[in-house]
């Protein structure tokens, strides 16, 4: 077997593994940040600074009994968490997280640091994201519990409502990038304007970035849009009836989705792995820094803002975000026409 080929496979498996790890790190980060925002200490008994907390959580969930309500639909109940996790992970497949590497000259030719680069990358991402709805709606329906069903329905209506603005924000970036490949779009953001300002799309597409982040937060069902869970009214929404590792998979999917949304924002608006001061081969450090800044923002939002009411959510999605996204797109097109 050819060395480059093995390296490609290695990159794929490494990406999967790191995505898994990032979810674990994020769980700890969420608990720690939440604790500090509320002047608490957070987990600090398991390992130094509570770093082993995710491991303890996983082990606890692993040894819990798996319950399935007698009235539940047996197959769909088992299928739903698998669908959720698969959709969450596979959306990351088209996101590049670094330039290329030769592993310090070990490889005969540079290997790109990403799972796949396809011509229609953004659309593949958008398509896989749209599949994520099935895990949630099926979990809600198959449980045959009123809380689950309501949680699943609300969640799916919310996700499809915000998916439109999400797609339109992506469209505005396409107008600037003239390409659907994420790697191409990142490479167009290298270099500087006037020698100081990085050529990141956020500077010419600030509204698009805001729309993307709002829609992304709503897509991942995070506060202030965490309706499917809404623990005070729906107990836990679509996963009320789930326990043990099936619940853990939903949890994992939520965190992986957060990572993906932040990673795509980094790629489309913040210049991906490009940044000043660091050499090209350390670009992934920039990428990680941007990613975790956005993830911190996610957690910060959750512990700062109260939840919307459901009618407010729909009102905001359909009557504010959607028209603003369309106007942003047309303005971008006009700007491309004028200056491009």
């Amino acid at each position: 077997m050819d060395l480059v080929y093995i390296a490609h496979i290695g990159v794929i498996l490494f990406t999967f593994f790191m995505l898994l790890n990032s979810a674990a790190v994020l769980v700890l980060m969420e608990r720690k940040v939440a604790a500090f925002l509320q002047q608490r200490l957070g987990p600090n008994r398991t390992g130094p600074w509570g770093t082993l907390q995710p491991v303890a959580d996983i082990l606890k969930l692993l040894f819990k009994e798996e319950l399935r309500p007698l009235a539940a639909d047996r197959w769909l109940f088992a299928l739903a968490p698998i669908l959720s996790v698969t959709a969450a992970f596979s959306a990351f497949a088209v996101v590049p997280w670094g330039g290329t590497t030769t592993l310090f000259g070990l490889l005969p030719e540079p290997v790109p640091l990403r799972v796949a680069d396809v011509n229609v990358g953004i659309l593949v991402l958008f398509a896989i994201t749209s599949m994520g709805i099935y895990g949630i709606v099926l979990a809600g329906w198959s449980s045959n519990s009123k809380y689950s069903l309501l949680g699943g329905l609300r969640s799916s209506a919310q996700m499809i409502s915000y998916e439109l603005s999400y797609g339109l924000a992506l469209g505005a970036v396409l107008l600037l990038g003239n390409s659907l490949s994420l790697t191409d779009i990142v490479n167009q953001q290298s270099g500087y304007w006037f020698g100081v300002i990085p050529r990141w799309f956020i500077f010419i597409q600030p509204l698009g970035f805001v729309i993307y982040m709002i829609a992304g937060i709503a897509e991942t069902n995070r506060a202030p849009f965490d309706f499917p869970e809404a623990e005070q009214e729906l107990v836990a929404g679509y996963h009320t009836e789930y326990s043990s590792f099936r619940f853990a998979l939903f949890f994992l999917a939520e965190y992986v989705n957060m990572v993906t949304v932040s990673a795509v924002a980094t790629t489309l608006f913040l210049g991906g792995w490009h940044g000043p001061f660091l050499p090209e081969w350390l670009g992934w450090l920039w990428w990680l820094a941007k990613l975790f800044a956005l993830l911190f923002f996610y957690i910060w939002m959750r512990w700062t803002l109260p939840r919307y009411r459901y009618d407010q959510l729909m009102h905001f999605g359909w009557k504010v975000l959607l028209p603003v996204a369309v106007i942003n797109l047309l303005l971008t097109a006009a700007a491309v026409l004028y200056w491009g």
Partner: protein
Amino acid sequence: MLDAYVPILIFILVAIGFAIALLWFAWAVSPSKFNRVKLEPYECGIEPLTDARDRYSIRYYLVAMLFVIFDIETVFLYPWAVIMDELLLFGLVEMMVFLGILIVGYAYAWRKGALEWA
């Protein structure tokens, strides 16, 4: 071109395999004690009177319908966005016409209260 899609397929298969393996492992090591009450749907401790799968608000249908229409609109925008720099003014005008017709529908939906939830 096809080669570019193989890694995606591998990635999806790894994800599915990972999920199934973990579920299998959890099933193998977790305890299981049958108890009928434990397997009832959660309803704050009260016995459920009716099946959960009942008829619900038609608004969900309406939202899904509007979503499909705007989704198709979004899809029409993508190829346009990619070649906009070559279509120039012609492209902008034709997309304005396309969106203009849809905005009539959007205004209608707004007036009829289809975008309201309450």
